[in-house]
């Protein structure tokens, strides 16, 4: 069980601000490297956006929609055997839109068959496309966009573009105009073996991670909101939290990168050159979600685990972001998702812009939220007829909700666009002892990206602490 802040000591080797998957993993890795770690979380619950909430016997997962198989290796290496063993495949991924309807395991073998048989793409082009995206890496040319990549291989085939892009847009908020390498890296991760989930739900995962951290001696304090990062003579000295100073030669912020620079450290500790790069960071979009809980004895047919649905004629990144978008995913949580908890829950997710919601009057905000729920139910009825009478909980979250719980700038659910990664990676060269971990650069986002980035940053932190 996490502690309250008054139990924390006055000094540590490293302080981690925020307990998203990146923060949790950084705390784990640094404790493994024998450092004395303090983990501070402003919320009463750990996990950041890897979170859940309970209502009337229901448990709703916020960001457990499906991650790549790479999670198995990552959890085995950096977390525990028990966590790794709870990872299971989601085998039924459904697409339903005016251009096509299909069911897939979302891996290279099945996609190759689909592209060839259903979309009539020649085998040689499919193979060449897969080799091209699998070979993409971070150091490659960043000027080519995903749109250009698709046009090169599948010119004019908006249906194929949709099949390839829609799931990735929901996974990390990227669009056809982002660098093709970000697409290639993320898409290839999924295509490796398909889509996986955590059996037992987010609550079980975070509980297991918390226990593992405690076993490794990490001091965890919740309800501890860091007011600022203390910088003295150009170097990190610690943090001020709930009015109290706690010192450490290294601070890792798992708060958003923009939040870290502008609100926690403050502009005055950075050089003009660095600030110029930071000011250019584009924060990614936020989300809307509708949480649907079914009555205790209600049963629904298995129509798939993850449904990418749309009534928009073609895929269009701006349509997906529109407040009244006709595109959404349904994550269906069958009783098998949480063995022992025999309830059905459905979470509808849409991409959304913070400003669209933040500028509404309180009355208009409530009206739009109700309309969002209504539209979602209409769409849901296409897959589960007469579901309305089986529902006993309905609730919606908007970008404002995401902002309130994560404190992320503009409630971003996917961190930043590509340029955020370079700023995040170089922040400790600017202010020695200050590190950032969290969703940045599109590729370091999602559950797998966040955990792996935690490992990468831990290496920098460990190296720094041992060098001073």
């Amino acid at each position, binding site marked *: 069980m996490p502690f309250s802040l008054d139990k924390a000591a006055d000094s540590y080797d490293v302080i981690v601000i925020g307990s998203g998957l990146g923060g949790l993993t950084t705390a784990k890795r640094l404790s493994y490297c024998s450092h004395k770690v303090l983990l501070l979380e402003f919320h009463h619950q750990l996990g950041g956006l890897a979170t859940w909430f309970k209502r009337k016997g229901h448990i709703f997962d916020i960001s457990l929609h499906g991650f790549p198989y790479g999670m198995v290796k990552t959890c085995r*290496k950096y977390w525990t055997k028990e966590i790794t063993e709870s990872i299971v495949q989601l085998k039924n991924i459904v697409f339903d839109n005016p251009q096509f309807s299909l069911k897939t395991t979302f891996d290279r073998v099945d996609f190759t068959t689909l592209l060839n048989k259903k979309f009539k793409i020649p085998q040689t082009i499919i193979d060449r496309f897969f080799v091209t995206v699998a070979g993409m890496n971070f150091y490659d040319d960043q000027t080519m966009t995903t749109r250009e990549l698709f046009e090169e291989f599948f010119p004019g085939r908006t249906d194929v573009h949709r099949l390839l892009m829609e799931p990735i847009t929901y996974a990390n908020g990227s669009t056809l105009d982002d660098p093709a390498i970000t697409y290639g890296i993320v898409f290839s991760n999924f295509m490796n073996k398909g889509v996986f989930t955590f059996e037992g739900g987010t609550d079980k995962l975070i509980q297991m991670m918390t226990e593992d951290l405690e076993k490794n001696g990490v001091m965890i304090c919740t309800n501890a909101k860091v007011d600022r990062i203390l910088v003295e003579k150009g170097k990190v000295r610690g943090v001020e939290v709930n009015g109290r100073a706690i010192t450490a030669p290294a601070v890792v912020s798992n708060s958003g990168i923009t939040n870290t620079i502008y609100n926690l450290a403050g502009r005055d500790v950075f050089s003009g050159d660095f600030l110029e790069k930071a000011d250019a960071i584009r924060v990614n979009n936020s989300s809307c979600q509708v949480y649907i809980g079914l009555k205790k004895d209600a049963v629904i047919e298995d129509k798939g685990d993850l449904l990418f649905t749309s009534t928009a004629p073609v895929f269009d990144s701006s349509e997906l972001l529109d407040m009244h978008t006709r595109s959404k995913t349904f994550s269906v949580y069958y009783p098998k998702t949480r063995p022992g908890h025999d309830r059905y829950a459905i979470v509808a997710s849409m991409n959304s812009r913070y400003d669209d919601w933040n500028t509404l009057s309180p009355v208009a905000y409530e009206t739009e939220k109700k309309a969002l729920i209504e539209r979602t139910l209409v769409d849901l009825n296409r897959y589960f007829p007469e579901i309305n009478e089986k529902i006993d909980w309905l609730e919606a979250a908007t970008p404002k909700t995401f902002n309130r719980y994560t404190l992320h700038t503009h409630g971003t659910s996917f961190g930043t666009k590509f340029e955020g990664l370079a700023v995040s990676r170089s922040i400790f060269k600017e202010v020695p002892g200050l590190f950032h971990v969290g969703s940045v650069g599109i590729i370091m986002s999602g559950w797998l990206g966040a955990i792996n980035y935690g*490992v990468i940053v831990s290496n920098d932190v460990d190296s720094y602490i041992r060098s001073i």
Partner: protein
Amino acid sequence: MTRDDIKDLILEIIKDIDEDADFDALQSDQPLRDQLDLDSMDFLDIVMELRKRHKLQIPEEDYPQLASLDSCVNYLEPLLKNA
């Protein structure tokens, strides 16, 4: 550490990363990455383990020196001569 000790150390670290790693057919002058299916995260693990166990700081620009078993030994031999 002798060259053989260093070789054993690297293989031991890789075994921790992947307990199924098979060293029987490993060619020491060929890239580890291709033969053992290691990715960049695995190489980062090797760097962190060497720092944890032997206080070795390997700068990022030297990571390519860890490509094959032979190049690892050549690179680490002077650094671990007193270990």
